[in-house]
């Protein structure tokens, strides 16, 4: 009888210690919720591929990544987040592309003590009053690329822009961001439906508005549709926009309609530093295509996480948070640091769509904003 109890005790102890060994000791479990199917899949796949490339290049065995597909639906993202927090017991979450999904998942995740590193969505609500010590945005605050476009438009003398964006949090942030730095008059301001693919009505309004330029924020397939229809409409006003509609993943589908258009970004494949060269070459070698903005953001997110893991144990939340806040890694975009609300302070560039051989791509032609933070940092206090 005693013997049996002893064996049982030993077995339990073995189980328990196995549990402990699996728990921490430098190991980090990452839950990635991103869009891998349906209309926005290209963005999520690039974030995932960039992230996984960085972990592969680092060769760090202490990082375990669980990847799930949110199908671009907020309710599915919430379910996945619950599952990752409660049954997968992840330490860090990342991956969400769309601001409406981020708003559904991030506040709950950080409230339950999980780190969230955003590789894309940066809604203003999470940058200002809704900021959280465990929430970091590695890409930008939503307004930033649009602020860069507005600054560029003002600089080259546009004074009567027609602006449009989809009616959802990131769309509202986009128009707010453009107006903040642009300063000129508006020939028209339109919110379109999210996921809309026919822009004939909007283009007719642009034609009739007497505008001298067009600014639009229409990510993914929406931007492809708009550009193709704009090119066929005979309206030839100059267009500026954020990089999202001119990114590597979709430029081939737009074709000639995008040639020569100026767009703003914090990254491009021709930024000259060692980290970026290694990333662009590594990405092409691994996946056989050029990396996109989203891939660069996924790559930087993983490297930020790895840099923090080298300095602190994720079980010690304060130390880990401090290590993340230092952003002590070589970013592919060049210099970058976190502001007081843990959103980037970085340079924004103006790119032009060019054709390089058979491939449509971008090249940097100017710097639009230098060491630029965001407008909401002042409202954030921990």
């Amino acid at each position, binding site marked *: 009888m005693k013997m049996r109890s002893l064996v049982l005790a030993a077995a339990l102890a073995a189980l328990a210690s196995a549990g402990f060994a699996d728990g921490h000791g430098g190991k980090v479990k990452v839950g990635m919720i991103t869009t891998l199917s349906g209309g926005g899949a290209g963005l999520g796949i690039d974030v995932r591929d960039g992230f996984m490339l960085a972990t592969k290049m680092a060769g760090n065995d202490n990082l375990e990544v669980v990847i799930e597909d949110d199908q671009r639906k907020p309710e599915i993202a919430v379910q996945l987040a619950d599952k990752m927090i409660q049954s997968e017991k992840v330490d860090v979450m990342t991956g969400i592309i769309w601001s409406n999904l981020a708003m559904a998942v991030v506040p709950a995740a950080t409230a339950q003590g999980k780190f969230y590193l955003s590789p894309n969505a940066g809604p203003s609500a999470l940058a200002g009053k809704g900021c959280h010590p465990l929430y970091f945005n590695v890409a930008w605050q939503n307004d930033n690329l649009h602020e860069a476009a507005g600054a560029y438009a003002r600089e080259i003398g546009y004074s009567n822009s027609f602006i449009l964006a989809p009616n959802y949090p990131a769309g509202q942030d986009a128009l707010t961001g453009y107006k903040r730095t642009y300063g000129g008059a508006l020939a028209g*301001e339109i919110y379109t439906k999210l996921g809309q693919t026919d822009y004939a009505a909007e283009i007719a309004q642009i034609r009739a508005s007497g505008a001298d330029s067009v600014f639009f924020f229409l990510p993914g397939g929406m931007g492809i549709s708009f550009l193709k229809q704009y090119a066929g409409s005979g309206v030839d006003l100059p267009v500026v926009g954020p990089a999202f509609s001119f990114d590597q993943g979709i430029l081939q589908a737009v074709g000639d309609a995008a040639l020569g258009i100026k767009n703003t970004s914090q990254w491009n494949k021709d930024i000259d530093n060692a980290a970026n060269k290694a990333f662009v070459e590594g990405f092409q070698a691994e996946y056989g295509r050029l990396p996109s903005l989203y891939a660069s953001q996924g790559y930087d997110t993983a490297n930020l996480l790895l840099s923090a893991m080298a300095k602190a144990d994720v079980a010690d939340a304060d130390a880990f948070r401090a290590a993340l806040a230092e952003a002590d890694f070589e970013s592919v975009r060049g210099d970058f640091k976190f502001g007081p609300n843990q959103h980037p302070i970085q340079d924004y560039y103006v790119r032009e769509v060019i054709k390089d051989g058979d491939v449509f791509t971008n090249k940097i032609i100017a710097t639009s904003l230098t060491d630029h933070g965001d407008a909401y940092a002042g409202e954030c206090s921990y």
Partner: protein
Amino acid sequence: MSTILLIEQILNGLQFGVMLFLMAAGLTLIFGVMGLINLAHGSLYMVGAFAAAAVAGVTGSFVLALIASLVAAAAAGALVELLVIRRLYARDHLDQVLATFALILIFSEGTRWLFGSFPLFLDIPTAFAGPVMLPGGIQYPAYRLLIIAIGLLIAFGLFQLIARTRIGIQIRAGESDREMIAALGVDISKLYTIVFALGAGLAGLAGALVGAIQSVQVGMGEPVLILAFVVIVIGGIGSIKGALVGALLVGLTDTLGGVLLPELFGTFMEASAATAVGSSLASMSIYILMAGVLLFKPTGLYGRA
């Protein structure tokens, strides 16, 4: 708002409506004749667009691309009918919804497996690339005029097919009483396959036509499918005429609502608030239209009780 802009927007609404008709016609035929709710109709639209993009990429010919879209979607439709749909006629609508929803996922992931996750390139033919000048100084994209023409032509052809041909008679008879026409010696299962392939082909053609001015990507059919359902609810189930009228109504309401409502609110509200409220209301406009129609005609405009 100037008259020119208004006319241009009416043309836009018409073009949108005609496209919706191509989607809704197949959907309403399938529902009317076979009593089947087919959620995978949007996937057939996607199949058409991808087939067109693939063929245009290889041959460079837009006409061949259109033919390919028709053939590929009709073939996919016939195949799906033979393998899956056939087992669903006798079951209730919930089972049909579930099974055809599964088909959406299979089609989407299959297409991704074949073509990758990034959108494909399909351009409009150069002859129709620019705008044309219409009487009254209206500048309008030539390709959209082409779409309107093709759509109206197909609508006319479909009416002729249903009203004047033997197969049309059988389709109409199948809607009224499927046991009776089976008893009369019509091969009902062959008829169902043909109707399904016809509906699929129309959806595929719509996908190819629209794909040239929009993005050809996985999942492109689902937003259109929702609108197509609204169209057949408004028009009345099983009625081609209802599908045409419903599609034009939805196309015009959606287009003109998006333009006029923000402007209407702008007359008494601050500009940016008017844009936000007007745009939100505009996205609801077709559902309000649907509710309004159902209030007075519970079976739709041309539906039978």
